[in-house]
């Protein structure tokens, strides 16, 4: 173990100083033999240990024994942490490629990918499992997660066609044009990055080039939903899709989304923030007021409210959730599919142009 640790350390030191390169060959030979379960045939390990311990031996020879044991322990830790680090690097790299985040369980914590609202993984983290004494679960969950990521690589490499993932009753921001390509957003009405994406889309004129539609996906959390009224808004959006307003230039569900994402209330607070902080009754009232404002009759508003609470809408939302989690396989909201790719997280104006 010691010569493996020494090799690891020497690789790093040799990278910055030629002085240590002469030892690399010896360390490598020793390491090669150790990893192939053969005894090291040089005194390299002993030489390194002795030279490290020599200053102590001169001052306090009685401490050489414990220090020698400590060196072995440190060597073991160096090897373990290096192996674990390598594992994490590989895992993070694959996750970054597949999901656009190096941390699949909490995508928002990874600064390497695009900004997004994370879809939290309810599986206990490695550390949480260890703390709860579930060692097997800690490794099992981690390896299972990695296996899942690897199995998703082919999907990541595929040619993404938004048409294949359209929700039931898809509504388009602008009138559907068969000449245009379809783009599909996966959004949470309460997610601030979805707000930013919508603004980018408008600024880039993306909505004019594409048939833009969406899947509303309220991000779940351990105690409900990540954003207080996302499910409620989603229910209304789906209900409005089931009951479209005849003759509307822009579907009412899109009008509501646009208002949430682009407009502020009288106090200058964005409607998205208002919804995220509002009580359900107030939010419901707002949605109904807006529906009426966008052209729905009182009867239609009542119908929409009723449908929003229906099993039909619940089924649609469940189907959409399944689509997002099992077919689109994203862990970041927003995600958007267009031009053969799935883009996870916030997409810049330039990339949308």
């Amino acid at each position, binding site marked *: 173990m010691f010569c493996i640790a020494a090799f690891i350390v020497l690789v790093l030191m040799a990278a910055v100083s030629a002085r240590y390169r002469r030892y690399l060959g010896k360390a490598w030979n020793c390491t090669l033999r150790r990893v192939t379960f053969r005894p090291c045939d040089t*005194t390299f390990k*002993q*030489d390194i240990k002795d030279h490290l311990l*020599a*200053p102590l*031996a001169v001052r*306090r020879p*009685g401490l050489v*024994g414990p220090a020698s044991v400590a060196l072995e322990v440190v060597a073991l830790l160096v090897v373990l942490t290096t192996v674990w680090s390598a594992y994490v690097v590989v895992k993070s790299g694959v996750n970054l490629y597949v999901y656009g985040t190096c941390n699949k369980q909490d995508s928002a914590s990874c600064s390497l990918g695009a900004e997004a609202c994370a879809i939290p993984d309810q599986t206990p983290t490695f550390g949480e499992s260890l703390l709860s004494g579930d060692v097997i679960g800690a490794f099992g969950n981690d390896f299972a997660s990695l296996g899942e990521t690897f199995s998703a690589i082919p999907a990541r490499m595929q040619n993404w066609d938004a048409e294949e993932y359209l929700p039931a009753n898809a509504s388009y921001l602008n009138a559907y044009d068969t000449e245009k390509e379809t783009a599909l957003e996966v959004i949470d009405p309460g997610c601030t990055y979805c707000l930013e994406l919508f603004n980018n889309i408008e600024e880039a004129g993306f909505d004019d080039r594409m048939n833009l539609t969406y899947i509303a996906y309220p991000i779940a959390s351990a105690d409900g939903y990540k954003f207080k009224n996302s499910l409620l808004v989603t229910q209304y959006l789906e209900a409005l899709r089931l009951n479209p307003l005849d003759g509307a230039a822009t579907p009412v569900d899109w009008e509501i989304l646009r208002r949430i994402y682009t407009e502020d209330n009288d106090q200058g607070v964005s409607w998205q923030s208002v919804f995220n902080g509002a009580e359900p009754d107030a939010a419901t009232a707002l949605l109904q007021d807006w529906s009426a404002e966008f052209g729905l009759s009182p009867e239609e508003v009542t119908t929409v409210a009723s449908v929003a609470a229906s099993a039909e809408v619940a089924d649609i939302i469940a189907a959409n959730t399944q689509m997002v989690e099992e077919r689109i396989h994203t862990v970041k909201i927003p995600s958007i599919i267009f031009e053969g790719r799935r883009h996870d997280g916030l997409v810049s104006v330039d990339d949308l142009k």
Partner: protein
Amino acid sequence: MKHTGLVRRTAPVAVEDGRLTDFAYLAPGAVYLDSACQSLRPQPVIDALSEYYTEYNACGGRVKYAWGTRVDREVQDARRAVLDLFGLSGRSHAVSFTLNTTFGLNLLQQLPQGRFGRVVTSHIEHNSVFLPTMTAATRLGVPRLVLDRAADGALAYQPAQLERAVVVVNVASNIDGRLLTNLTDLVRDTHAHGGIVILDAAQAMAHERTLLAKTEADAICFSAHKMYGASLGVVVATHELLGSLELTFVGGGMVADVREDSYDLLANDPGALLEPGLQAWGEIIALHRAIDWLGQVRPGGRPAAEHIEGLSQRLFEGLGDIPGLTLVNTEASPVISVYAPKQDSHRLAVFLSQSQIMVRSGYFCAHHYLKDQLGLPPLLRFSLGLHSTTADIDQATQALARLMKGLS
């Protein structure tokens, strides 16, 4: 101060701490106890080498200009000084300079086919003897006999075992300094049975040369760097032995004439037969200075041998007093090997090095004897030189004692 071969120096004296002034360059606190590998060079030897390089750096044996003729003269003097060391005559013996003792021993074993019936050596030999005797026996197609050495260093043999034998043994062991005490008998008996004796005198030349005085051995090989000279090998051999060699290692410097498919070796210079190519002129000249120095040096006003004997006794007793240490030596010697059954000798050597104490660890190129025969772990070897002082020995033994106590 520069010296030439013509200037006689005054005898070196000891400095305040007992160290000879000729080793005053040694850093304070540094304790060098590996003279069996190579001795420290006294200042006059260093000066002689430096003088050659800076004042008359010429090739010898082939040029007519003044620097070259001076080199020839100095080298000739060096050869004579070597013979004088042993009390031998240039009419019967020649001196060749080589790379080191091992090189000389290998060169001498270009022995004629059919002349010898066996190769004899002993178990306590350095690999420089042990290995070449294997290859020589194989090349000559004769058996190889490996004999024991008694505790006093005498080779244990039956005269019949020396029948037409090539006997190759050391004069002093590099493990414990034991001497070939029956050298005279061995040479006599070997010659009586038609054999020859080749001596590895590498460890004997610094402090045990008297054993070799007027020896009738056929060849003596030693290293200048173990007797205060610069790095150089030396072979002293009889004209008869040199003339009988079937040389396969040949080149310039040893030929009288060369034709397309044949050559004539120098007829009247047997020493040149082992000196193909350009020689280490500066080192040869420095050897002469080392021999002169050895003849004059009187540490503490005492003869060198007496000084070394006193230091050896102190070292032997000092090491013997350390608990947990086992001495390989049975008596005091300038070379003393020890081991601690519970400690790794290499580790001890590294730890001692941290205190500027330089000792050797391992098997000292005597793997067969120490590993196979005695089954010992790697040893720790302390070897003294004329630079050594009682303070050096005390510093080393105290440091080792402290380590042994702390590590136990």
